[in-house]
């Protein structure tokens, strides 16, 4: 079994180190992602993006951070205080928890759970509660509408997301039977993120080859789960001001933003683990491959965002219920059948 990095430390110390490490890494990642997003959007629109603060605008994000930190935190009249103040935390905490589950390389992981994949989806589902708390507590009709849309969308798209991931779980369970690592028999669990990568590394074939439809469905559903264009209906500026975070200002707003970008990052990491072989790759060390693939997927998300217009709400729901869910169920059935027959 791969041992985790922090097994040798006192548990509380280990938890503290892990949390601060993840927070720091996520912060850096979010800053990088914001800068990348602005640059990619600019280049696609043949602009230059941030150019003034620092060389090629690299310090722009830090300037924005300072601005957000120094801004006044406004609590509007008539808000549900507890819910209003708790919402950013509820949105943000699962992101940190989900990030701690990722296997960055063989043996380089913070926490090793056999139900890692289930936990990731669970934490993903938590964000919905936070978003609905924000919308409900804000005492603002736009925020409430945005939150309602978000809940409807996230619950709908979780179904194809989990169904497409399930076909991978089936395959890992079947292919990992009697698998040996360094001459030792290992009990492979389909929902263990590290094991999913191990099976792909062992067979040298990424699951995107076996499961292209599942990969596509998973990616689309991830886009919808992270509320990104073309599925950013909860935040549709032209209709809902800013959606569920309309009433949030300063750092509270920044935390929502932070969570959104981190969710995108985590979605890409899960997709990397499930379909693109995680840390598996030639020459370069594991973590490098892992983050290369993750950022490639993040780039694709940005690319999609700046290509497509926003869907209408009924289109969004129709697409999910009449295309993605039937396809993913079909895909799962065929996968199960093939596994049974082979």
């Amino acid at each position, binding site marked *: 079994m791969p041992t985790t990095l922090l097994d040798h430390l006192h548990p509380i110390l280990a938890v503290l180190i892990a949390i601060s490490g993840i927070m720091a890494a996520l912060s850096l990642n979010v800053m990088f992602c914001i800068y990348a997003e602005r640059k990619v959007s600019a*280049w*696609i629109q*043949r*602009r*230059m993006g941030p150019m003034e603060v620092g060389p090629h605008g690299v310090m722009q994000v830090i300037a924005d951070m300072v601005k957000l930190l120094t801004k006044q935190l406004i609590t509007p009249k008539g808000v549900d205080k507890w819910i209003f103040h708790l919402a950013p935390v509820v949105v943000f905490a699962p992101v940190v928890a989900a990030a701690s589950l990722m296997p960055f390389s063989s043996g380089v992981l913070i926490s090793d759970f056999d139900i890692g994949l289930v936990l990731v989806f669970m934490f993903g589902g938590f964000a919905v509660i936070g978003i609905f708390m924000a919308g409900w507590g804000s005492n603002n009709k736009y925020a409430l509408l945005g939150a309602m849309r978000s809940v409807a969308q996230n619950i709908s798209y979780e179904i194809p997301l989990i169904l497409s991931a399930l076909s991978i779980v089936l395959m890992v369970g079947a292919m990992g039977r009697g698998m040996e690592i360094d001459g030792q028999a290992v009990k492979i669990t389909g929902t263990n993120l590290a094991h999913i990568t191990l099976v792909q590394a062992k067979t040298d074939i990424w699951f995107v080859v076996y499961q292209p439809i599942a990969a596509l469905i998973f990616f689309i559903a991830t886009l919808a789960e992270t509320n990104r264009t073309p599925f950013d209906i909860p935040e549709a500026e032209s209709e809902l001001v800013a959606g569920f975070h309309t009433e949030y200002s300063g750092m509270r707003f920044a935390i929502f933003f932070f969570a959104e970008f981190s969710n995108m990052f985590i979605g890409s990491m899960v997709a990397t683990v499930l379909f693109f072989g995680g840390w598996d790759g030639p020459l370069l060390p594991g973590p490098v491959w892992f983050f290369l693939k993750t950022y490639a997927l993040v780039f694709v998300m940005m690319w999609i965002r*700046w*290509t*497509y217009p926003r869907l209408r709400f009924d289109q969004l729901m129709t697409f999910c219920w009449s295309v993605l869910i039937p396809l993913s169920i079909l895909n799962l059935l065929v996968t199960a059948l093939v596994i049974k027959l082979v």
Partner: protein
Amino acid sequence: MGYVTSIAGGFKTLVTGLGVTVKELFKKPVTLQYPHEKPELSPAYRSLIKLIRFDELGTHDCVACMQCVNICPSYCIKIEGGKVEGIKRKRATLFEVDFALCSVCGLCIDTCPTTTLEYSRLYDEAGYDRNWTYDLLAEYRDYEPEFREKQREVEAKEAAEREAKKEAAAKAKAAAEAKKKAAEKTPEKGDGDKKGGDA
């Protein structure tokens, strides 16, 4: 069947769209980094008027004739000027344009008798109050005494030349008259001269 074809067709258009944006991604940005890069102005660009500097004068040639002031539909030009000691032509001592009023119609340029007005190439100007006046003579202040000195010299020289010419002309005239008189006085000698000439 329509279900499958619509999904396939939709997917194809999505991929086409991604192709379009990725092509744009690698093209050169068209942004002009404005304060750092200056735009290239069209030859037809017109802005606030300015005074032309003439090489032979070393400065502008505004003679404060007030034609531009009179024709200006926006009443935005203010000129003061007058006679200068030792120089024939008048000179402007104040030339102000209120750009807040100016409509850049160009009538002043068309009407200028000494053609010393033209459009400037200013483009990033901003006014901070209602009296957004430009002193068009500002850049010529340093040249003015020098010009006047030179002009005085030139005009003095011209005057001296004229004087000399006049004198010469008068002399010649006097000489011619004297000759004439002399000829009238001694007609024989004149005949004799003529004869001599014939011989």
